[in-house]
């Protein structure tokens, strides 16, 4: 079991290194930060001073190593815009994002999973078709379209809710609704197909042939098996809690991590972007680890494999 986790943790660390490297390469190669921050009209000597101050005139591999060793020491640098520690800037935005993504996560699960199970159990019925059509719509409509649609209906037409900002709980309703609907659609589709797959398995027929009432066949035979694939997508959703609301935050002018990311990318504020990417990578990697542990818990076949190690 120990070796199994050592492998997983090693893989997680490698993922983070790759993400950090990727961020560095993409941002550094796509434009000169000095020009982006100071503007094309800045005098050459100011640009040179800026570059020297931030180490931008060192060889690229030196910058990379320097940057990397700083990250390893936990120094994530300062924002090039206002000189504050990048991590502070990011962390102070996290609560605002979680205020949207956490309730949305709860709604996704509470809506998507039961809808998927119900649709699978009543396959081909009118309700199944309705659930699937809603799910496909929620799946294919991009979140900014959905967000604008909701704004148009509830803020512009009906005037019930504000269209942006963060002044009261009422401001959170539309962003949360946008996030929940899309996620619930994904979950409903996924749960439905996992459930249909399981319901077609011979052991379900075995349970029925033993005289187990159908309701119990579903709860104690089908659901534990259908949970295994569903956990994968749930894990992914947990991983997006911190930065999964980029589009929605932008549309609703919600001052969360996602919006910070958009601004930082536009400004080539390297340290902030890298900081967010690192945080996202950490969140994804952690949620993957949780999923792996849950797999072992849900599926005795995997547990046995771990135990042999």
């Amino acid at each position, binding site marked *: 079991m120990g*070796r*199994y986790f050592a*492998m997983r943790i090693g893989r997680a660390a490698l993922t983070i290194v790759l993400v950090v490297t990727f961020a560095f390469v993409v941002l550094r190669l796509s434009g000169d930060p000095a020009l982006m921050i100071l503007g094309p009209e800045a005098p050459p000597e100011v640009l040179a001073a800026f570059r020297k101050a931030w180490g931008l005139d060192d060889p690229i591999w030196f910058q990379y190593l320097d940057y990397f060793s700083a990250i390893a020491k936990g120094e994530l640098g300062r924002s090039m815009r206002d000189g504050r520690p990048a991590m502070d800037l990011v962390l102070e935005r996290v609560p605002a994002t979680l205020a949207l993504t956490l309730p949305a996560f709860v709604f996704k699960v509470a809506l998507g999973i039961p809808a998927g199970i119900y649709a699978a159990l009543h396959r081909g019925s009118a309700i199944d078709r309705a659930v699937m059509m809603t799910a496909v719509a929620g799946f294919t409509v991009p979140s900014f379209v959905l967000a604008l649609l909701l704004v148009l209906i509830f803020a512009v037409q009906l005037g019930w809710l504000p269209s942006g900002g963060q002044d009261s709980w009422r401001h959170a309703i539309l962003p949360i609704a946008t996030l929940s609907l899309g996620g619930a659609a994904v979950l409903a589709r996924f749960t439905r197909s996992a459930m249909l797959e399981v319901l077609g398995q011979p052991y379900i027929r075995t349970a029925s042939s033993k005289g187990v009432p159908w309701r119990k066949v579903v709860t104690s035979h089908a659901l534990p098996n259908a949970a295994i694939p569903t956990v994968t997508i749930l894990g992914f959703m947990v991983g997006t809690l911190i930065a999964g609301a980029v589009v929605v935050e932008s549309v609703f002018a919600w001052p969360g991590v996602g919006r910070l990311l958009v601004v930082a990318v536009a400004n080539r504020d390297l340290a902030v972007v890298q900081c967010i990417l690192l945080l996202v990578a950490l969140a994804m990697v952690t949620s993957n680890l949780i999923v792996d542990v849950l797999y072992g818990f849900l599926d005795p076949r995997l547990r*046995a*494999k*771990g*135990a*042999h*190690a």
Partner: protein
Amino acid sequence: MSAPLVEVSSISRSYSMRSGMFGRAAAVHAVDGVSLGIRKGETLGLVGESGSGKSTTGRIVLGLEPPDLGDVRFDGQPMAAVGTKAWRAQRARMQMIFQDPLGALDRRLPVATQIREPLDIHGLGTPAEREDRVGELLRAVELTPAHGARYPGALSGGQRQRIVLARALATKPDFLVCDEPVSALDVSIQAQVVNLLADLQAQLGLTLLFISHDLRVVRQISNVVAVMYLGRIVEIGSADDLFAHPEHPYTRALVSASPAPGRRSAGRIVLTGDPPNPAARPQGCAFHPRCPRAIARCASEVPTLSSVGGDRQVACHLVTGAETRDAA
């Protein structure tokens, strides 16, 4: 007696298999010192349960995987190195048929195209001649050109296996390895394919290695039958004689386990214990834990395949040991 077309000398093959995802690797002896000879135009049947190594033997004989030890000679020549020109020439003379014809065919191509494929690969004949040959092959397996235009999905299981057979015969091979070719088919269709295979063998002078768990089918088509258990041949002899008078306790159990209409199960030998596990091969005779007649010697000493008269060879202390005692 003609010379053997295929000669297999003490081939062995082991894999390292892990228990679980990160378990310690253990050597699994899939095939362990197997020797066989198949004479031109004859059929050697290879029977055994899962894990007996019969399919691995077939793959080694065909050069699909190399043996760790021992060698295979085809028509007096050693197997050429994979990828060489000599290898391609040799491969055109030997073909394989598997259990699952749907898996062996490409669902997206008409079957005639797939029968033609080996001709294109080996560059045999002009395009027109290849077309004729495809028609000829379809007729040989008792199908019509109309069948050739169809896709595998539009054919029945028996028809698909005929297509696979036609494709295997395209390069006019001398030698065919058939691995459970009729096991997935219903009895009535199975009989059609077995008859067809026998007819084609007689017409074309084919040499066959016929691998199956089904004793009846093996007996029907084979001249010589070898019985495998955990990677070794435990008994080999002429087909009719072997099934009529099995000597090895395992062969006896297999023959007695084969149900027959009109016979009640009285006197059946039912082996105790689980099926053999190649990853945990017992010491001595691999069969001894399940053998109803095992003695102390069986647990320590591996019996070798020895002649017990005629063309029969048996690897069992109880059978060959008795011979030695008689002689003494």
